[in-house]
């Protein structure tokens, strides 16, 4: 077999190999894409769940902050009133 024929055989063998490789890459790309879509969907679901949780927590924190503020004011008022009573008791000497 001459060099030319060997060379031609080598070229066509390489074409076959490269074609198989290309096919493998193509299949792998399709699989990667499918996996990617699935992963993204999962992550987005998780994210939306966490966002909903965050919103809920935000609401609760907001309520909690508001009530804490009110409580602070009220405790301040109560303390002030109690101090006034104490003052009244000590000034009147009569219980």
């Amino acid at each position, binding site marked *: 077999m001459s060099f030319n024929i060997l060379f031609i055989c080598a070229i066509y063998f390489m074409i076959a190999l490269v074609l198989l490789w290309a096919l493998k890459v193509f299949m792998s790309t399709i699989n990667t894409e499918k996996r990617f879509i699935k992963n993204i969907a999962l992550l987005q679901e998780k994210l939306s769940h966490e966002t909903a949780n965050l919103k809920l927590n935000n609401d609760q924190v907001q309520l909690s902050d508001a009530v804490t503020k*009110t409580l602070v004011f009220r405790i301040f008022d109560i303390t002030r009133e109690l101090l006034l009573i104490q003052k009244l008791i000590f000034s009147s000497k009569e219980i």
Partner: protein
Amino acid sequence: MKLRLLSALTILLCFSGFSQDFNGLINTTKAKLNEENKISKKAKLTADLAWYYCYVNVDSALVYGNKSLDFSKQTKNDTLIGQSLNDLSTVYYVRGEYPTAIDFAQKSLKYRVKTNDTAGIASLYNKMGNNYNKTNVLDSTIYYYVKAKDYYYEINDSLSSIKIESNIAATYFLSGNIKKALEYLEVSVDYFKKKDLKLELSNAYITEGNILLAKKDTINAIKAYEEAVVIAESVNNNVGLASALNNLSTIYNGLNDVEKSTKYIKRAIEIRESIGASGDLESAKLTLAINNFTLGNIKEAKSGLLKVKPFLIKTNANEKLQNLYETLMLIYAYERNTDSLSYYSRQFKLTLNKNVGESNLKFSQEIETKYETEKKEKEILVQRADLAEKELHINQKNTQIIGLVILALVLSALGYLLYNQQKLKNNQLKKEGELREALVKIETQNKLQDQRLRISRDLHDNIGAQLTFIISSIDNLQYGFNLKNEKLTNKLSSISSFTKETIYELRDTIWAMNKSEIVWEDLQVRISNFIDKANHSANAVNFQFVMEEGLEKELKFTSVKGMNIYRIIQEAINNAIKYAEASEVIVTINKLNDLVCFKVEDNGKGFNIKDVEQGNGLNNMQKRADEINADFKIISEENKGTTITLKV
């Protein structure tokens, strides 16, 4: 030599079969020519005269041919010029000036190609083939015959093309290619048989006989000649008939059947005498004379030989002369005529030497030709091998190039696929990264807020416990120590109720915080409970709680929204009780388009919104409404009550 003579005769047969009174035609045409004035007509008539003279007087034919060419050139008509040149070529062919005939044929060809005269072109190629045949240039002969045949096929002139095939067969026969000759001849014979062309068929059979004779197939050669004799007789093909009889005589002479040979040659001589074919006639007479000598008719043989001798000397037919001298030598030896014997013996030797010389020369020429042919054939074979090798090399190169191109394309496709895959992976990683980052951030925030909420809950629990302790301590003080100071008692009661209110508020908030969302039903119950409590604490005020029936039971609010709605209603009712001095408070909940409308109306003293500065209560309501993106309105006039509307 014998074969060549026979085949040459046969080729001529293909163009014969033309018998007319040419002298009459010549006279008529000449008369017309004298009357004619038009040059184009004169050109045509002189061309006709040249053609007719070919069969009568070749010199006159040449004169008229040249005249025709002059007239044609004057008309500047390409068709006429081509025709005149063609006629001149024929004249030179008949005169035996074959190179000149070829020259004129080629000149005529140019005009016929110009006028696109296919039939004329075919005829010219045929003529050139005939001329080359006469000059023994057999490869050119076959080349032009084949071209003529192709042109005749093009114009569907099957008869002419088959006739040419018959000529090709004869030429192949002359060149020694018997196989090819038979191939062509078979086609011709089949066609002539099919079309019942007896004249042509008889000539074809003669050619077949010649070929078979060359193959030394004597029996079939005799059959072919006999077939030719029968058919030629039926169509009066005298030239062909004479030829076939002559050839049969030659065969039987070779087979030593002198009587049969004599019978056939006598018939041939009769026919040739009747048609005036002088050359062939003398040849036949020689054969007859030799046959007579063989049969012992010495006198007839001698007279016949002596009659033929001058013609053979004149035509330089040396082979025949050799036979003639040999036979005469034998006759004079038989007659014991020593002088004549010695004369013809010398003549015989001279002719023999001449023939031997010619034969040797011819033999060496043939050997040389054969050597040259073989050399050329070898060269052609080498060239063909080179060409085949080059072609193979080119094919391999092409295959390599195609392969490399395909490989490059496939590699490009692979590169693109890999790039695409990598790009996809990068995008995936980027997007996943972004999502994960966002998720981590939110998770961190959630954790942080969870922490804050836990701390808040602990604080609220602690504060709740402390407030309960305060209430209990105040109650213990009030009832345990029997306090007489009214001012002090009132103050303690006020602190106790304030603390209780704070605890309720804390509980409300904890209720809202413990729910991820507040269902409409829960909110409704909460509002209703509050109204009941308000009604209990302010007996003088008539409370009404009106709720439209069409409200959706599945309506849901976020904890912040629900809490803010509840607080606004709470504040509105408290305001109506505390500041408006109202005797009636109506809380209405209904649906307005897609919104839920909460309305708190009282019949209190009201106030002028422009005049009254909004206090903490009104401001808080507005703030809370803004927080939940709700529409908040206060409508109030002095002594006409107040209406607070909240649309969510």
